[in-house]
């Protein structure tokens, strides 16, 4: 009886895992396919080749400029990661560990701002950037990703709430200033949340699609990021000659992103559940 139960249980899990992995397997298989378009009659390709990767990485044409897109996204991601992670850590520390008059009103304000759909403000931001000539530039995109990143402070605040108060008090009694407490005492203890914040803000530009599409709208493909570049390969006129290359690109960027994501998810769970238990 027990044995049967266990077999059913594992069979069911295997079934679920297959469902969840079919698209991923299809992605990998198609990226290795000798046929450049979508093979609609067979799941597995007829001929296997690494040609799509070769074309993607070394054979740049007007449609496919993957190495360029990759470098663009990498630069944007590095800069916006530096700015947004420091903003997030600064805001969350101030809101968690310091007491000042405007603390509650500011926190309420941020709750309200988070309820507006994100890209409602994009139209106005677009015009602000345009009047400074920053549309179609990577600086504009970096500013958009990092400008209001302070609003996403809640997870990190939940973490800072758990740092014991006596620790900070003791340091202050010994004459350390608030800045020193933050930089020398709390931050070194907060490695998990720093890793989480840095990785998640680094990943945002790789995952984002709409903001990049709104800002980089000139149609010059060498300016694009990976996401809009790959999306453009699926246009009706292109899909039959570029679908396999799209899959190869998908595999290539998924590898580093998955690794970072798997490192991050551990801290993601801690942040989300940890914060709410303490109310």
């Amino acid at each position, binding site marked *: 009886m027990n044995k049967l139960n266990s077999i059913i249980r594992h069979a069911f899990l295997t079934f679920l895992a297959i469902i969840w992995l079919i698209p991923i397997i299809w992605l990998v298989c198609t990226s290795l396919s000798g046929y450049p378009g979508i093979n609609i009659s067979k799941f597995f390709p007829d001929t296997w080749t690494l040609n799509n990767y070769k074309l993607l990485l070394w054979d740049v044409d007007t449609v496919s400029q993957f190495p360029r897109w990759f470098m663009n996204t990498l630069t944007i991601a590095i800069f916006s990661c530096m700015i947004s992670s420091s903003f997030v850590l600064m805001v969350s520390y101030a809101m968690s560990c310091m007491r000042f008059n405007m603390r509650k009103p500011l926190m309420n304000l941020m709750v309200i701002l988070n309820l*507006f759909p994100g890209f409602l403000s994009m139209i106005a931001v677009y*015009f602000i950037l345009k009047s400074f000539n920053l549309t179609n530039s990577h600086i504009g995109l970096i500013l958009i990703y990092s*400008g209001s*990143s302070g609003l996403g402070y809640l997870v990190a605040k939940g973490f800072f709430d758990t740092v014991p108060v006596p620790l900070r008090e003791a340091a202050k009694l010994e004459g350390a200033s608030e800045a020193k407490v933050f930089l020398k005492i709390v931050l070194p203890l907060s490695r998990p949340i720093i890793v989480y914040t840095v990785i998640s803000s680094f990943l945002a530009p790789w995952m984002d*699609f709409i903001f990049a599409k709104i800002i980089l709208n000139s149609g010059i493909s060498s300016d694009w990021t990976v996401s809009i570049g790959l999306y453009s390969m699926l246009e009706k006129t292109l899909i039959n000659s570029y679908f396999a290359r799209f899959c190869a690109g998908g595999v290539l960027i998924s590898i580093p992103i998955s690794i970072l994501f798997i490192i991050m998810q551990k801290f993601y769970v*801690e942040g989300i559940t940890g914060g709410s238990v303490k109310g």
Partner: protein
Amino acid sequence: MKNIGRKIAKFFSDIGNAVVKGDIFVKLSLLIMGAGYFGRKQYIKGIITTIFQAAAALFTVIVAIPYISKFSTLGTVEREMVFNIDTMKNEVNNYDHSFKILLFGMIGIIAIVVFVFLYLWNIIKVRELQILSQRGKHINSFREDVRALLNQKFHITLLFFPFLGITLFTIIPLLVMIMVAFTNYDQNHMPPSSLFTWVGFNNFKQLFTSTISVTFGYSFTKILIWTLIWAFFATFTTYIGGILLAMLINDKKTKAKKLWRTLFIIAIAVPQFVTLLLVRNFFADLGIVNTICSKIGLTDFLKTIGLVKDSLTYIPFLSDPNWAKVMIILINMWIGIPYLMLIATGVLMNIPADLKESAKIDGANGIQIFFKITMPYMLFVTGPYLVTSFVANINNFNVIYLLTQDVFVTHNQYLANSNAKETDLLVTWLYRLTQEYYNYKMASVIGIVVFIICATFTLFAFNSMIKGDKEEEFQ
């Protein structure tokens, strides 16, 4: 509210007090803001304050006033070509740009309000300094003031740049877009070639009315209902699915827990735009799933039971409104369940073991333990997350856009008239209105409505959660 009123009253009485009782330096600082600091030998602070005052005055006169003066009409001079006698050429006249007037007028008004506040606040500060010096107390040197920014006033240092960013990239743009909802900014009124102006609540009226040519009322009701249905199913299917999957994996009898978990995580670690675009082609009308379905006879079977129209040779997974809606929810489960599985795993491990043990000793079976202990505990811990994820689903752009854009075409003329589709959420509709049809006024109205829905729901949910206070139960 009372508290705020009291604070404002105190602020103004302080100012009155300072002006009446202040000495010559305080009174001088009404004219030159730095004067009060010069009087107490805080020269550097005095210079900085005076420079700030000059800059603020210059900004007001040169940038703010010209725009603010046109704010009530949003511009009157239309752009046209004028023949210039000096250069003997046709040139663009000195036209008004309505959106710039709105944007910079708004920024100007906010800046002036801030300047006036700082000006008044400065008087109070200067008066405080006077009292300090009269009592013979220590007055900070500039160096000490700077050091305070790293100590007692460290929060100002921490928050200054983040909040500058939030103001520039969220608050001001949002205010401008809220203003746009009260104008006629659309395809026929696009600056710089033409002007737009204030129209009051007309756009809000339009959202709730339906005539033969203007069908916003019809589309709005349809899309709102679908948005709420979507948000409900998207939140709860993934929530329940995630918990069940987590329990299945974390059960004592399951072997190789880590392997299973990793398999499911891989599915969500791949960026959404890759997987969703892939799945969209997977389920295309002439896609691979349709080939397989017709081979095994599923297409014909669905035809006989009437789920697929006879005229079609394929299953319209993402091209028929009803099929598409169901598919979108199912595909969203594919994306969402592993996330919830991760979160639920973390929470389930935290359930106090003695709680379950004592329930078992009392004779509870597995199902009873699930409904009486596991679920209440999960709901308690993940309650706030559930609320935020419902709101996030109302605003869930990626799934709908990437699955249906360029693929799904509506055949409903009423919806098409207002640029909507059956599968649209309010946010994707908003996006399409701005990016493809330049109908900014209606997009802003929809944005405001989305905000009202989210805000009401959040307030309601959090209130009832606080009422059912179960904090002690699990501590």
